[in-house]
């Protein structure tokens, strides 16, 4: 970018914000909120007294807790309210790219580095939690990481609530010390993983619902930097989406592509998928230039399915109607698919490849929903079919 462009950028940003005309600071409201935060923290700190601390380091080596695969209890207190956090000793040779695993409050978890693209030539490195929920690794992040690029995942549905975290670390980091919000402290041993022609240094752990207070990266015996995740990441009343990864420094969008286009009720539309820090995001733009409206939905990145993985995206029109799109991923074997619709018709769709993954997109007319999706291979054989297609609530 040349200096003229930089000057224009600076000028336009200033012009835009100069006209804001902010009023006086809402002093009382801010002080009230601040006092409430203090009070919550004091309450949390007091409750920690009743919770037995769980502190065990696993950085001392594999022999500390036995061979890989044997859970190493780091919380063994027989106290009814104690959290139990178990970290298995990392095994760089573990199959399936597993670099961290354990059990938190009785709930097992496993973190694995996997290629979530389809068959070659695509390669998209990601970390999968329990083989389901993926988060892309940022290939460019490794060189200048200090404390690491950390991602957190909170389980909303399960009881007790637990979470898992992983971090991409700089090559100099030899261990990581984690302090949970309930006072528990433990160490995590990073593992180097090769994937997609890149080398990643990863560390992962599980945590109870209270969340993580700090993460410290060590080089030998020397702590290099301390990181505190935003409090809202673990707040029970947080509006953060549960069951999706929450990155501290979201990876840049790794791939994006158009997966469908057409006309519905006279309105041209285009649907694009983007794989990046927010997961797998689908965005529909009404009218090709995207100026007349859009809707989007994101979900965690999954491995390419053996069959089909479908979600829906409704769009409320200004006139009160609802347009509806179906989209998702299909098996790499899929040459085309047929959608059986509620009006008795069938639509043939050819999947589009983005980042080695096969996608489809379908728009339905007013009042019509998809009933069945059937996948066909190149020889025309139907090899998978599903009627489990989500229906939007206002249908």
């Amino acid at each position, binding site marked *: 970018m040349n200096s003229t462009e930089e000057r224009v950028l600076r000028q336009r*940003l200033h012009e835009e*914000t100069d006209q804001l005309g902010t009023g006086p600071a809402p002093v009382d409201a801010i002080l009230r909120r601040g006092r409430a935060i203090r009070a919550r923290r004091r309450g949390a700190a007091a409750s920690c007294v009743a919770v037995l601390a769980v502190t065990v380091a696993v950085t001392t080596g594999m022999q500390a807790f036995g061979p890989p695969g044997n859970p190493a209890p780091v919380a063994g207190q027989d106290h009814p309210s104690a959290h139990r956090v178990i970290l298995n000793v990392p095994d760089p040779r573990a199959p399936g790219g597993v670099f961290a695993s354990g059990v938190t409050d009785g709930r097992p978890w496993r973190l694995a580095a996997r290629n979530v693209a389809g068959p070659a030539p695509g390669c998209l490195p990601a970390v999968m939690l329990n083989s389901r929920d993926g988060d892309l690794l940022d290939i460019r992040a490794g060189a200048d990481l200090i404390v690491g690029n950390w991602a957190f995942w909170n389980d909303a549905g399960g009881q007790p609530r637990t979470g898992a975290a992983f971090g991409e670390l700089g090559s100099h980091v030899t261990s990581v010390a984690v302090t949970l919000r309930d006072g528990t402290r433990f160490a995590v041993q990073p593992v180097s993983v090769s994937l997609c022609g890149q080398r990643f240094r990863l560390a992962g752990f599980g945590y109870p619902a209270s969340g993580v207070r700090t993460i410290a990266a060590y080089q030998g015996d020397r702590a290099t930097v301390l990181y505190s995740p*935003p409090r809202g990441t673990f707040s029970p009343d947080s509006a953060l989406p549960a069951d999706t990864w929450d990155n501290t420094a979201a990876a840049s969008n790794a791939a994006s592509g158009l997966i469908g286009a057409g006309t519905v009720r006279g309105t041209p539309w285009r649907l694009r998928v983007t794989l990046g820090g927010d997961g797998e995001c689908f965005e529909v733009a009404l009218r090709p230039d995207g100026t007349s409206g859009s809707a989007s939905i994101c979900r965690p990145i999954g491995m390419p399915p053996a069959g089909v993985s479908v979600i829906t995206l409704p769009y409320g029109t200004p006139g009160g109607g609802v347009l509806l799109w179906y989209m998702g991923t299909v098996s790499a074997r899929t040459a085309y698919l047929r959608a059986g619709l509620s009006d008795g018709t069938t639509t043939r769709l050819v999947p589009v490849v983005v980042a080695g993954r096969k996608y489809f997109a379908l728009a339905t007319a007013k009042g019509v929903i998809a009933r069945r999706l059937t996948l066909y291979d190149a020889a025309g054989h139907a090899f998978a079919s599903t009627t489990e297609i989500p229906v939007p609530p206002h249908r």
Partner: protein
Amino acid sequence: MEARDADDFGQFMASRWPGLVRLAYGLTGDRWVAEDIAQAALASAYAVWWRVRRADDPDAYVRRILINACNSRFRRRRVTEDPRAMAELPDSRLADPSDIVGERAALIAAVRQLPPRQRAIVVLRYLEDLSDAQVAAVLGCSAGTVRSQASRALAKLRGSTALADTGAPRQAGPVPGQGGKP
């Protein structure tokens, strides 16, 4: 003790409020969201005021809180809808001075599309006019990272319509530092 804290913090807050709202607006593009985030950031700062006050650079500390709050908020917006009626959209290119407003809005929209870190770097660099070292201190990264991320961000902005006509003379609107002349 708390009363003294409140007094200290009150002075800090009064002087920083407009700047923090402006920064949040640059990051979010929404005035009301910006005020809410600035409030949340200042409340968080007040909760740890003893730490903020003793920080080497309290402004950098609070900016960092605000940027984290913005990022959290953006992450929450997993499902979005932008139901603009087609009838509200112009059929043809607008004439000045609305064009200028449109360009600025396009720029803010383009900045919002950047990944969180790049967005923060652009706003801190070009709106807050911080040096690369100061931006690095706010974001907890190296100055080299700031420069490389800024370069990527600017390349993306150049690819959008937001800076498409930077060679063209401006038709309306004040220009900072030039006495408001066109």
